């Protein structure tokens, strides 16, 4: 089971077979399953029977403590003796070698049954309903916004239900979130309204995330402790280390709040990923890194993104406690993030969670992923490993859900979304003068004042007479008149 120099501990459940998740270049596991990654529709996927319901954290800290105590040097000396005795060859891949892969923690199987021996995280009916409603809200929004995009109205949106909602539910409401693109569900969990979502996606006058300045899904809300998303990938990762450190230095949040940072496995190829984990490790802070490994960065499969064992294998290299979890199993995500959060606070140190899922949607709505993967593969995966279906089956088995409730929920969510959508469509853009605000705090520098005055001059001259401008100005609140004042 352990692949990390004996420094593996378990916190939940009992020992069981290894999982057969393969994250990289199609290495087989001892179960003889082909890589479930490259061919999710293959028999290996549907016949997976060996699960690991053990919540296994690879310890980042014990090797570090060993080095502090001088044991690292002793070990190195013993190792060099061993090299002399046994030859160099066995020292290659002594840590990463063989076919051993980091196991994946699961609670539910593909049919929504609790895996024998697995420990259910503490949830009740009301909490389960809340999880499920939020999970269902994501594809409802997705469908509406997707269709809008196909009409050319907004740019893109996508979601990963179990990873996002499961983790959101495990965090406290005021843990600081630094997200990438797919974490809208965390905001929804915290009470960000569907109207707020629509306002940002349409960039209308009610967009409190960014006054219509950013592309869709770039949400942000200090009230919900959700830092504004930016397009450049991975920049949030070193920032999260700084946010975590600030929390540690804030008396009323120390030991109470963490920074939670989301990113995809593609973003983990950026230098900022390595910088961020290294900083959170060497300058300890309660920072939780949540890697969403969905197998694709736009069109590039993860096999072309890295050749090691996913993202989780990097955690121990930075001395960070690490766990891999089934990202399509909401209860496994919930349990893993709860435990990870607890470790962050107790140890005051960073933790890395890698959530494995398969992106059934396109990268964005401006992308057609059937060009680089077969439609049948996606359809099969939707049926076999649909995170919503898995959880629904579990809820039904508990007597918490039925077909009537399903019909009612879907109709209600669709109505809510359509209502917000129609409302957002009619609203105007923010005032045109906002183009020049928020560049600097304090007094606006001369060059921006002059540029604002230049636009105002052009509007005075042509704004009411030049037809294309007149039409464009009508889209803004106050028709651009605020610039003329």
């Amino acid at each position: 089971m352990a692949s990390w120099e004996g420094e593996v501990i378990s916190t939940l459940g009992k020992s069981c077979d290894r999982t057969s998740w393969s994250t990289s270049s199609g290495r087989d596991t001892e179960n003889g399953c082909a890589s479930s990654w490259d061919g999710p529709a293959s028999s290996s996927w549907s016949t997976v029977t060996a699960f690991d319901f053990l919540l296994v954290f690879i310890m980042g800290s014990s090797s570090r403590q060993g080095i502090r105590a001088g044991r690292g040097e002793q070990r190195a000396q013993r190792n060099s003796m061993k090299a002399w005795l046994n030859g160099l060859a066995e020292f290659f891949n002594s840590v990463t070698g063989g076919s051993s892969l980091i196991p994946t923690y699961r609670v539910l199987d593909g049919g929504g049954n609790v895996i024998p021996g697995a420990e259910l995280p503490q949830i009740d009916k009301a909490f389960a309903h809340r999880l499920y409603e939020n999970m269902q809200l994501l594809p409802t929004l997705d469908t509406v916004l997707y269709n809008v995009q196909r009409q050319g109205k907004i740019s893109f949106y996508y979601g990963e239900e179990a990873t996002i909602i499961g983790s959101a539910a495990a965090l406290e409401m005021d843990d600081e979130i630094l997200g990438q693109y797919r974490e809208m569900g965390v905001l929804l969990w915290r009470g960000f309204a569907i109207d707020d979502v629509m306002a940002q996606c349409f960039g209308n006058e009610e967009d409190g995330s960014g006054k219509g300045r950013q592309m869709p899904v770039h949400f942000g809300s200090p009230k919900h402790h959700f830092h504004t998303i930016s397009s450049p990938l991975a920049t949030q990762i070193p920032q999260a280390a700084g946010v975590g450190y600030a929390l540690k230095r804030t008396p009323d949040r120390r030991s109470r709040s963490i920074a939670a940072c989301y990113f995809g496995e593609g973003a983990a190829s950026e230098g900022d990923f390595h910088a961020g984990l290294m900083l959170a490790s060497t300058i300890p802070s309660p920072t939780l890194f949540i890697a969403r490994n969905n197998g694709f960065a736009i069109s590039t499969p993860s096999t072309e993104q890295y050749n090691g064992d996913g993202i989780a294998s990097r955690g121990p290299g930075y001395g960070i406690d690490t766990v891999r979890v089934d990202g399509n199993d909401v209860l496994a995500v919930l349990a893993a993030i709860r435990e990870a959060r607890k470790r962050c606070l107790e140890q005051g140190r960073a933790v890395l969670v890698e959530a494995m899922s398969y992106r059934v949607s396109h990268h964005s709505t401006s992308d057609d992923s059937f060009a680089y993967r077969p439609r049948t593969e996606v359809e099969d995966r939707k049926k076999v490993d649909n995170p919503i279906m898995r959880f629904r089956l579990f809820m039904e088995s508990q007597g918490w859900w039925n077909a009537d409730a399903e019909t009612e929920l879907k109709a209600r969510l669709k109505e809510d979304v359509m209502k917000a959508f129609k409302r957002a469509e009619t609203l105007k853009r923010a005032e045109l003068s906002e183009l020049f605000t928020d560049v600097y705090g304090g007094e606006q520098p001369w060059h921006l004042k002059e540029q604002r005055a230049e636009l105002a001059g052009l509007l005075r001259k042509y704004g009411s007479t030049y037809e294309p401008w007149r039409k464009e100005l009508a889209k803004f609140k106050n028709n651009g008149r605020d610039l003329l004042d």
Partner: protein
Amino acid sequence: MYQAVRDAMSIALAKDDSAVVFGEDVAFGGVFRCTMFGRERVFNTPLTEQGIVGFGVGLALMGHTAIAEIQFADYIFPAFDQLVNEAAKIRYRSGGTYNVGGLTIRTPTMSVGHGGLYHSQSPEGFFMGASGLKVVIPRSPIQAKGLLLGSIRDPNPVIFMEPKILYRSAGLFAVEQVPVDDYELPLGQAEILVPGADLTLLTWGTPVYHSKVELIDLRSILPWDVETVAESVNRTGRLVIVHEAGMTAGVGAEISAEIQKRCFLKLNAPIKRVTGWE
């Protein structure tokens, strides 16, 4: 000048509990070692410029005061994305709901004569196009202390570039009695050091010490003080801009374009740039 810089940081740390100072090797030596502030507030980072700036952005997002050091301005480029796409734009992209005004990046700049290719550059021009940032270059100890405290307390992220030849210089350069008090100098304002009638010489940093005409120390690169410069050139009719960085698309090019627009009828000669070779 290094003492003035340390003095400014000491004041910032003493008066603001949220302030921290960090960067490569900052905990080594100097007045901060094992002194009153402790390793929680003055600490080393691993060798990662993008990480240092990103970490500072995170602290500043939480309203804390982050004083980061990039060991040499020549090595600021790995942090370019964090500075230009993140620090500079966070206020704008969040509609004013988030900002990183508490972030100050200190970095030694310009040449000392024995630094070779990668310890001599003047990269201020690369940041002049990144509105949302401020870029400041002091010329002397008194200026360094006041401008650094001004930068730390400015509600915007500031890149504070310290001409490194001035750190320990005596004689020709910058020996001054620096006030021990807490004081700030304004950002975005140039200063006429030597009034004159026939020529305006505009520069900043080390080259300030090599001139004898109406001499202006620009002090801030972004935003730059167009008013002072234009007023001077309207009087003198001639402008020479001196900077250590290369000529092509340098700060001098930007200033020339703006000044010829504003002072066209008063200019007695084309604006001349005296710059480093590329």
